[in-house]
């Protein structure tokens, strides 16, 4: 009895001296098997980051690019490959795929996000076979531990306004619900480079999410039910374009992209009360995604109805050093796709089984060996193997290795729809394949990485590097190197690979002042009809620097400062040398740097205000649109954006919370 009370007291003492450790923006693990970093919600507050697509500006693993000169949509790349080569999931349900590939990331508002997990390399087999260069999983705020009310308002000098409101309610001791309402609009026309075209689209988005969470610790049951509706409208093109008057005519060039989306998803999980290491999960998602759009005289409509189902069983072999996950997937996608008068409607379906074994010696070594077999109506029956290994050779050091295969059918129009904003003719040169006449894309990805934590002058530092290679066995090549009037799609003939090397160094310069730096080298080559070129619009060298400083919390008040520098080296540009000289780009773009800053003032746990600037150096792409003076002529091309079109932008916003 005496002993017992002593231990109780000592525990209380421990509680009292508990060190309040600051939450880090980016968390790197030294014990996870895969090369995964976690972006916490704190990191997401560092930039204006209105939506998921814009939330990676301070992240070394992901590069943010501009996809075209019209829509201002930010495209992301990992290991030098665009988002179709990534598996993008929301709470482990595939979210950005198929029809939503171009704009999907901009359909998740930033304030909804709890955290983002980024895995470089092959990734797990549990959610599918499509990922080639990495996986991005977003976790949304959970109803069970969310605050009752949250309000965020935002406005910027490019006349974009946003409003986010969250409501949360505990319905009973087991049920909780959240309602998220998001609206954004860009109401005024901007043409800072005086080319007669809008620099940013006019737009309106309404996005509503209602979710329910059930949690019963005693029985081990957990469940989620989500309903979501999204309606997004964009208008872009010439400043004087009026859709009612000018659509379908050559009066002036304009474009509208209207997307409506509805999602329902459910999850049910059961943890065996006697066996906390054993669980069953069953998730189902249905969504319908309907995009109606035109780009000048190009009409592009795509509607996708999808159903996804995943049954997962987790358990152990003998003990928790040997874990396994196994289960079944089913997916069904109905596409109604029209490119001008051509009908590309189709149905894709697949069923697959996966098994993943994890060995962890609970000390310094772990390995994940995964495999899956799928039967897909277009891709056939195929096997997807994946391997990850981790070894800690000494304290605070970690070496990782991964290898794996990915296979996917390229949605060539949805993924390259920025090319519709040009006078290019679309030609598919092969016709014997099963996906638009093309064969499925198949690639192997291998990677090694090393990371080490240490101290310099008694301050925390870490450094690391990684090297990844992606080898395409087949690729749906998108060829803009042949002619400025054409885009060609064909099966890879020859070689295509992507090598990426990254070196990272992070250091706490002085107390509360953190420096994050990363240098990235990419060598991405593809054999085109005309020869071997670097992938267009990809910089060979990139550099990221981020400085963050925050004052200590004093009477609940705090200042936070953030500065980010993104430097991008020269980029291979699409071939335009056969155009008249005023409608040409050089072979390579110039290098440039973009700087962002933000200051946040926390007045209390309830209220904070932030102001910031994007691209404060005011770097602009000199010529954004080729043939802007004759948009229905043969040289018009708004798809070549290698740098920001809009110059400097300043914004301000506030956050209000009721806890």
């Amino acid at each position, binding site marked *: 009895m005496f002993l017992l009370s002593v*231990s109780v007291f000592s525990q209380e003492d421990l509680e009292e001296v508990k060190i309040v450790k600051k939450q880090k923006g980016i968390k790197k693990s030294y014990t996870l098997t895969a090369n995964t970093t976690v972006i916490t919600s704190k990191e997401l507050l560092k930039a204006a980051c209105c939506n998921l697509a814009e939330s990676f500006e301070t992240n070394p693993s992901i590069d943010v690019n501009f996809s075209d000169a019209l829509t201002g949509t930010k495209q992301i790349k990992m290991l030098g490959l665009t988002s179709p080569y990534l598996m993008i999931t929301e709470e482990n349900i595939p979210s950005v795929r198929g029809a939503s590939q171009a704009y999907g990331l901009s359909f998740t508002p930033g304030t909804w996000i709890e955290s983002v997990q980024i895995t470089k390399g092959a990734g797990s087999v549990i959610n599918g076979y499509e990922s080639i260069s990495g996986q991005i999983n977003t976790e949304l705020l959970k109803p069970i531990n969310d605050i009752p009310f949250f309000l965020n308002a935002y406005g910027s000098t490019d006349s974009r306004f946003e409003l986010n409101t969250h409501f949360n309610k505990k319905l009973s001791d087991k049920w909780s619900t959240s309602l998220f309402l998001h609206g954004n609009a860009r109401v005024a026309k901007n043409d800072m480079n005086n080319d007669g075209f809008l620099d940013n689209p006019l737009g309106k988005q309404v996005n509503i999410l209602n979710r329910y969470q059930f949690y019963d610790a005693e029985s081990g049951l957990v469940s989620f039910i989500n309903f979501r509706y999204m309606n997004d409208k964009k208008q872009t093109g010439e400043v004087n374009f009026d859709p009612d008057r000018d659509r379908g005519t050559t009066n002036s060039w304009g474009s509208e992209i209207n997307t409506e989306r509805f999602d329902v998803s459910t999850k049910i999980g059961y943890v065996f009360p*006697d*066996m906390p290491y054993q669980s069953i999960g069953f998730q189902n998602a249905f969504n319908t995604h309907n995009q109606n759009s035109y780009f000048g005289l190009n009409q592009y409509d795509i509607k996708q109805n999808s159903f996804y189902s995943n049954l997962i069983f987790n358990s*152990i072999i*003998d*003990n*928790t*050093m040997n874990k396994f996950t196994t289960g079944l997937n089913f997916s069904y996608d109905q596409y109604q796709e029209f490119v001008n008068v051509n009908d590309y409607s189709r149905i894709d379906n697949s069923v697959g089984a996966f098994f993943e074994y994890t060995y962890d*010696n609970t000390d310094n070594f772990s390995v994940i060996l995964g495999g899956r077999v799928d039967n897909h109506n277009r891709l056939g029956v195929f096997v997807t193997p994946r391997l990850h290994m981790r070894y800690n050779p000494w304290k605070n050091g970690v070496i990782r290795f991964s290898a794996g295969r990915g296979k996917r059918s390229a949605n060539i129009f949805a993924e390259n729809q920025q090319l519709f904003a040009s006078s290019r003719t679309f030609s598919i040169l092969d016709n014997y394949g099963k996906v638009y006449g093309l064969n499925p894309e198949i690639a192997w990805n291998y990677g090694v990485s090393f990371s080490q934590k240490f101290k310099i002058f008694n301050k925390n530092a870490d450094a690391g590097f990684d090297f990844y290679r992606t080898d395409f066995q087949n690729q749906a090549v998108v060829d803009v190197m042949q002619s400025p009037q054409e885009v060609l799609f064909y099966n890879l003939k020859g070689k295509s690979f992507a090598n990426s090397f990254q070196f990272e160094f992070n250091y706490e310069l002085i107390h509360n002042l953190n420096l994050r730096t990363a240098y990235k080298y990419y060598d991405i080559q593809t054999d085109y009809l005309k020869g071997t070129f670097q992938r267009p619009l990809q910089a060979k060298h990139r550099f990221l620097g981020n400085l963050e400083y925050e004052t200590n919390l004093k009477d609940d008040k705090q200042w936070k400062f953030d500065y980010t520098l993104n430097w991008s080296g020269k980029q291979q540009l699409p071939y335009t040398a056969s155009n008249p000289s005023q409608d040409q780009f050089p072979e390579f773009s110039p290098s440039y740097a973009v700087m962002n800053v933000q200051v946040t003032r926390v007045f209390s746990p309830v209220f904070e205000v932030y102001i910031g600037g994007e691209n404060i150096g005011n770097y602009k792409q000199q010529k954004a649109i080729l043939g802007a003076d004759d948009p229905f002529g043969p040289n018009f091309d708004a798809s070549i954006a290698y740098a920001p079109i809009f110059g400097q932008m300043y914004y301000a916003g506030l956050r209000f919370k009721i806890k």
Partner: protein
Amino acid sequence: MNKIILIAMISFLGFSAQAQTKKNKNLKYTTEVNGNCEQCKKRIEKAAYAVPGVKTASWDVSTHQLAVILNEEKCSPADLNAAIAKAGHDTKEVKATQSDYDNLHSCCKYDRE
């Protein structure tokens, strides 16, 4: 009063009878194990996992509690305690021999009671 004792006895009898006929495949067992550091944690857990039938083991550095789930058809808590002691760590039930204790790394030489 008599009634209560009777009920207590019956339920106790019932319990022990059940325990004899049906061995628990997922017995949750927690005991106190003496140790100091992260290195001790690794050693204690490794010793626990080495006992056939131990499904999961986790030792807490601050509370010194070792939480285990084991299959009684394959091993008993006594086997577990013996294995931990063999690795040099005193448990509430079994003390390590002096030579096993002496084999510990210097930073792991916890204060013995």
